[in-house]
């Protein structure tokens, strides 16, 4: 494995994405990306007793379908890497219990999926794992009751609030075979520019995304022109705008038509998501369906996929702390 610059790993033996699945909830399944998802949930409770168990079941089904697509059984998986937004990442842990495969639980808020790809690719490239199942999920109802209010409470959301997506994405990284290559990964630093509004996650994360994207481009001596698409995970419309402004001010070339945000693409304005989609499942499901399918079809050949997380907890925000952001990025290349 070779390092490049301060934060980037260039994988010596780039793993491939052998299989991938993106699952979406009902509201997400009525949005502009509906035709791209591999499955759309009929019912947000999935026949379970609680929202948390429903989210866990969504992860289990998505993981199982990904393994089926790769022709692998759970016994053949060297590690499951993933997480979600629940306290102690229970949705993913409970799904991993049912899968029975070795498990590495990760928490990076909405950056979790890309964090898992970065780490999984390193472990495979280094020869320590043969394969790794990377996954992340979120559920509107579990996130809402943990971070905000009971669902039945009559409150108004401000325009900058985002809508937590009910969605899950799984990608199976493999040390050999055919598929999209993961060629490099950039680790993020925790960046905090003192945003305290817990509704305004796009604003809290945009500086972290800026930091990681510029680190990646500097470390690998590339510019935005070297990529067909630069994907950000869950900045939303306002956050995407802020990122563009940061790039402009810093003199970093970032063409607006190349910058696509998963949260800003998941819903239409008519669905009233305010600032756009958020949650670990948003970037995971959108990249596992919309982005990866377009790379495989040859429409895109090099994509920089980043995922960013707002690392707040109900405790930190009640105690008045500002919201630290983090962002990871991986470069994906078609065959």
């Amino acid at each position, binding site marked *: 494995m070779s390092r490049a610059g301060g934060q980037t790993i260039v994988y010596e033996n780039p793993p491939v994405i052998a299989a991938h699945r993106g699952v979406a909830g009902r509201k997400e399944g009525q949005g502009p990306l509906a035709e791209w998802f591999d499955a759309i949930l009929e019912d947000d409770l999935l026949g379970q007793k609680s929202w948390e168990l429903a989210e866990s079941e969504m992860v289990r089904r998505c993981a199982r379908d990904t393994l089926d697509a790769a022709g692998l059984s759970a016994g053949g998986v060297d590690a499951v890497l993933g997480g979600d937004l629940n306290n102690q990442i229970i949705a993913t842990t409970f799904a991993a219990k049912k899968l029975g495969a070795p498990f590495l639980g990760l928490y990076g808020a909405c950056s979790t999926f890309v964090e898992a790809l970065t780490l999984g690719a390193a472990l495979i490239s280094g020869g320590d794992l043969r394969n790794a199942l990377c996954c992340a999920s979120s559920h509107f109802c579990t996130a809402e009751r943990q971070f905000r209010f009971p669902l039945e409470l009559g409150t108004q959301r401000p325009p900058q609030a985002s809508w937590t997506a009910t969605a899950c994405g799984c990608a199976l990284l493999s040390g050999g075979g055919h598929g999209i290559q993961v060629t490099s990964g950039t680790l993020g630093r925790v960046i905090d*520019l003192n945003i305290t509004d817990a509704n305004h996650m796009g*604003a809290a994360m945009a500086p972290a995304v800026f930091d990681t994207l510029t680190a990646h481009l500097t470390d690998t001596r590339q510019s935005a022109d070297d990529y067909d698409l630069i994907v950000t995970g869950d900045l939303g419309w306002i956050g995407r705008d*802020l990122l563009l402004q940061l790039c402009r001010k810093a003199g970093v070339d970032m063409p607006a038509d190349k910058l696509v945000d998963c949260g800003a693409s998941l819903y239409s304005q008519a669905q009233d998501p305010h600032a756009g989609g958020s949650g670990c499942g948003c970037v995971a499901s959108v990249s596992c369906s919309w982005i990866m399918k377009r790379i495989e079809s040859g429409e895109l050949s090099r994509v920089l996929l980043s995922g960013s997380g707002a690392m707040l907890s109900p405790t930190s925000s009640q105690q008045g702390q500002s919201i630290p952001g983090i962002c990871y990025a991986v470069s994906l290349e078609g065959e």
Partner: protein
Amino acid sequence: MSRQPYTAGQYQHLVSRVTPSSRMLVGYVRAFWVGGAICALGQLISAWAETLKLGEVTNPMFTTSVLILIGTTLTGLGVYDRIGKYAGAGSAIPVTGFANSVAAPAIEFQREGAITGVGARLFTLAGPVLAYGIASSVLVGVIYWALRGWLL
């Protein structure tokens, strides 16, 4: 080493410039007519209570209780959160909103059980209202007691 082109202060200024504000006039109109309508409904219930020969003390109690019943039932039916999204303070400030703030967590936290779920969470939002409302009324009572002789 920081790559950030803005200091925290400059960035916060940029954020507030880029963030759209709520549509003000629409917000007030909705809060006004929904809030007003709930109060007019209260007046109607109070008029109905008069025909039931309820007294000056029991009439407001009856009115409040009926409004609270309406508030909790609409919460359970999943209607009150939609009214709240539309009307904002128009449905949060009337006593039906107080009922909503009691009933919503009670429904949401059923799965955490009857004691630590429903029982404890019932007061997550209403608790502060009762605590500071009651405490300030006691303060007013004590001050009134102390000054009563001097006032009269």
